[in-house]
């Protein structure tokens, strides 16, 4: 499927989960297609908030994003986000990296909420329910669901089973489970994969784009 056709699943106002940790696992071609597609008023869930002037940063620069949910927006080359944030043009929900992953996992796994020990006693605990379990404090965390997930994998088979490459795996498998529609960018579609080594089963993948 062409990238532009695939990202037509994204509608104005959607929450879009975007894979990648820095550039590793970043679905650059899908993001470029999303910019071309033109959907706006988006909430983006991703570990970072864009680097340099391409990819996620370009989506932000185009004014399509109203809110970013991420763990680490501030980087040496995150000038696009920085500018929008300081100008009050973009909302930020800062989530510790592990809670970000676990909240998406909860969305995909049908868990209504969970108690996490991360961020107890910190400013990011503000407004969250605290519960003591076995003498330890935990915060109640809710799922983060996506309307669409844009992820990058290494290879797929024709059914949509996915394998990844090294640390580019990062958020892809979790995001694939947490979105209503998952679009995976892969380097190639192969005839078969080892069933023991499939990381994302095809049930979680709705559209495949070779890029």
């Amino acid at each position, binding site marked *: 499927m062409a990238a532009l056709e695939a990202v037509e699943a994204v509608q104005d106002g959607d929450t879009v989960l975007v894979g990648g940790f820095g550039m590793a696992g970043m679905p650059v071609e899908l993001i470029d297609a999303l910019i071309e597609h033109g959907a706006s008023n988006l909430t983006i869930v991703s570990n970072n908030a864009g680097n340099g002037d391409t990819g996620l940063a370009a989506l932000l620069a185009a004014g399509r994003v109203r809110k970013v949910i991420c763990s680490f927006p501030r980087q040496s080359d995150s000038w696009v986000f920085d500018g929008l944030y300081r100008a009050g043009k973009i909302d930020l929900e800062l989530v*510790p*990296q592990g809670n970000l992953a676990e909240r998406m996992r909860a969305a995909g796994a049908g868990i209504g909420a969970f108690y996490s020990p991360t*961020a107890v006693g*910190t400013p*990011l605990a503000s407004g969250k329910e605290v519960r003591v379990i076995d003498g330890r404090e935990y915060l109640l965390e809710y799922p983060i669901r996506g309307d669409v997930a844009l992820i990058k994998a290494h290879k797929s088979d024709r059914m949509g089973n996915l394998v990844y490459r*090294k640390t*580019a795996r*990062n958020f892809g498998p979790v995001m694939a489970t947490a979105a209503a529609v998952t679009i995976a960018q892969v380097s190639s579609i192969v005839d078969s994969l080892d069933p023991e080594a499939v990381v994302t089963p095809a049930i979680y993948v709705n559209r495949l784009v070779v890029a």
Partner: protein
Amino acid sequence: MSLTREEMAEIVARDIPDGSYVNLGIGQPTMVASYLRPGSGVVLHTENGMLNMGPVATGDDIDPDLTNAGKQPVTELPGASYFHHADSFAMMRGGHLDVCIMGAFQVSAKGDLANWSTGAPDAIPAVGGAMDLAIGAKQVFVMMSLFAKDGKPKLVPACTYPLTGKACVSRVYTDVATFAVTPDGVRVVETFGTTAEELAARLDVSLI
């Protein structure tokens, strides 16, 4: 003589038990890897989804799909495994890592850690995996200079910077001394170019 950063890294490396699973935070803690004894069996975890991470990659070994938590290209050692972010942080949050080594702005006498935000009103907040790491590992070692550039101590009765985690630090490695944070208080383990008495005079934290 106070320690150089390299000497601090060497001392931290010496205190990591053989066979430990260890996460090295971004920045100064990364230097510890160079001082791990060959054959120590220490396994490095990187929270972006890997165990048995090798040294930083150079030249032809650079692979954009293989990076550490600081997004530097790294290498893979025999026995490596890859996993996704939810599994990686489950490993951390579940208490399976033996040691995590982090930098800090401040550590309190109770082991509270502040290392993610100076609380400056115009700063853009960013936390990454610091809060997950702080509460996840069996032991958290901090590496920092004991005094800030303005001379203020960074080992304090209570943190004035926003917390990363509560009562999570077990050891503090500094350029002038190593401290153990214990239920009974902060103990001086070793000093470098100074004495426990001199440190006690400069700190607001009681030392045992």
